[in-house]
């Protein structure tokens, strides 16, 4: 666990040692702010539903951008040889890097608290429970997308290719819910269960169901497992 924390700290510091983290955070805040404020005063509703709908879309590009270099850069620069020959398990490397991406997503989400403050100031009869579960849903979806992003980063040593693979896989997960009407009945249930949107919408409504939590946990575990196997595969190349 100590090694995971060491990797986590290094990665998080590395994000902020380069302009990348600042650029991503600013763009994330501006995009969400623009989408939120343009409709907030228009509808006159005291909720953050607009924000909770728009953030997963922004995630589609934001998260692969954050995660694209986590492992591919190590492969490209050769520093993977340094950390892989230190007394540290590959799963600790993967987990430390993954958690740093989740932490950056959490920091990015903090910027949206400004909208919550605006809502609290100007709105009335606010459903604080729905706001809480809405944020929980965003963190869970962000965590799922980060696991996909880390996996994409382990597939190649090219950051651009990793970014594109990340977007493609996340897009498929996002799309499941949209293509349900085209699916035959026997497949619809499975496709719906695989959809991130389906589970997010349950949580955003204020319902915290174990099935949703198990889904998010399973997808994260699945992609982190695959990532660890990919990192280990260098031994057999």
């Amino acid at each position, binding site marked *: 666990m100590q090694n995971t924390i060491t990797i986590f700290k290094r990665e998080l*510091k590395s994000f902020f040692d380069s302009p990348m983290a600042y650029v991503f955070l600013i763009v994330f805040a501006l995009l969400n702010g623009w989408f939120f404020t343009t409709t907030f005063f228009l509808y006159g509703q005291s909720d953050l539903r607009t924000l909770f709908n728009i953030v997963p879309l922004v995630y589609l590009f934001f998260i692969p951008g954050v995660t694209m270099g986590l492992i591919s850069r190590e492969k490209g620069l*050769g520093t993977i040889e340094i950390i892989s020959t230190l007394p540290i398990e590959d799963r600790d490397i993967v987990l430390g890097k993954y958690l740093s991406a989740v932490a950056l997503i959490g920091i990015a989400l903090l910027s949206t608290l400004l909208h919550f403050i605006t809502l609290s100031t100007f709105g009335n009869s606010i459903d604080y429970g729905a706001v809480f579960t809405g944020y929980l849903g965003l963190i869970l979806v962000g965590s799922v997308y980060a696991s996909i992003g880390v996996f994409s980063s382990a597939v190649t040593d090219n950051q651009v290719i990793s970014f594109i693979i990340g977007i493609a896989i996340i897009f498929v997960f996002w799309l499941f819910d949209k293509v349900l009407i085209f699916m035959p009945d026997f497949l619809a249930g499975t496709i719906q269960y695989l959809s991130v949107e389906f589970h997010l919408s349950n949580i955003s409504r204020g319902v915290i169901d174990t099935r949703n939590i198990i889904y998010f946990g399973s997808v994260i575990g699945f992609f982190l497992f695959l990532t660890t196997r990919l990192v280990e595969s260098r031994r057999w190349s």
Partner: protein
Amino acid sequence: MIKVENLSKNYGTVEAVKSISFELNGGQVVGFLGANGAGKSTTLKIMTGYISPSSGNVYYGDRNIQDDTSDIQKDIGYLPELNPLYSEMIVHDYLQFISEIRGIPSSDFKNAFQRVVEECSLNAVAHRTIGNCSKGYKQRIGLAAAMIHDPKILILDEPVTGLDPNQIVEIRQLIKKLGKEKIVLMSSHILQEIQATVDRIIIINEGSIVADGSSDELLNDSAKGKAQLKMEVNNADENDIRDMKATIPSIDITDIVKNDSSIEINLEFLSNSDPRVDIFNYAVSKKWIIIEMVASKQNLEDIFRKLTGKGNLS
């Protein structure tokens, strides 16, 4: 003790390492010598647990690197060939990062940091960003990272690449000092470097070990008790040169090269005899003009060329 046993590594259909075996003991610096692509780095990568062999084993005492990778890696300090570093990190922070993963308590880090900074002469750049350091400093940062935990085993892939002559001498002295108490295995394609630094040389060619011994042992083995003599003469007839063997039976004429105005003769003779007086007298009897007569010794480069069939190492 490290025991490498029938180690092989295939990349697809290419056999990078072909069933090599050797043993390493403490208190000696061993040089791994070979041309590019000979299999040196692949062997070192397997020994450090970075990649797995296709077959064979590497034992550290009774532990196998395949089974106890992390445990064995605690005892190894490794400098990879291309010395990859996190260029955005400060030297101090990088060494702290490595030491944390190495399990060095934070209270001991200061001393460990001071030691490697001193040994690798990093004082001037200790708080500088790695990306802004010169190639020589980067090489020494990599070396410092390999030594921060004072390992029992040091595996250094081309450790003096990028260093200037003064730095090479410093690092050579450091490696020699470390070799007195640790197992040090270093690879290099610079023959002079290997000859000046190591106690034992392992020459690898096309994935196989072709020689293993001290510098003197390799020279003696290769010479097979024979010495060479090279002479350049004027006014000589080629038939007279060939007849010299009949007059002086202890010599073998290995080569005759005709130049524009002279003839170069290469001879071999048993190193426990000295036929130079007889050769001189024969030359006088045939009225040759001796321009040069010099006994030549084989050096490591000749042996390397002979063993690998290659003219250059890089």
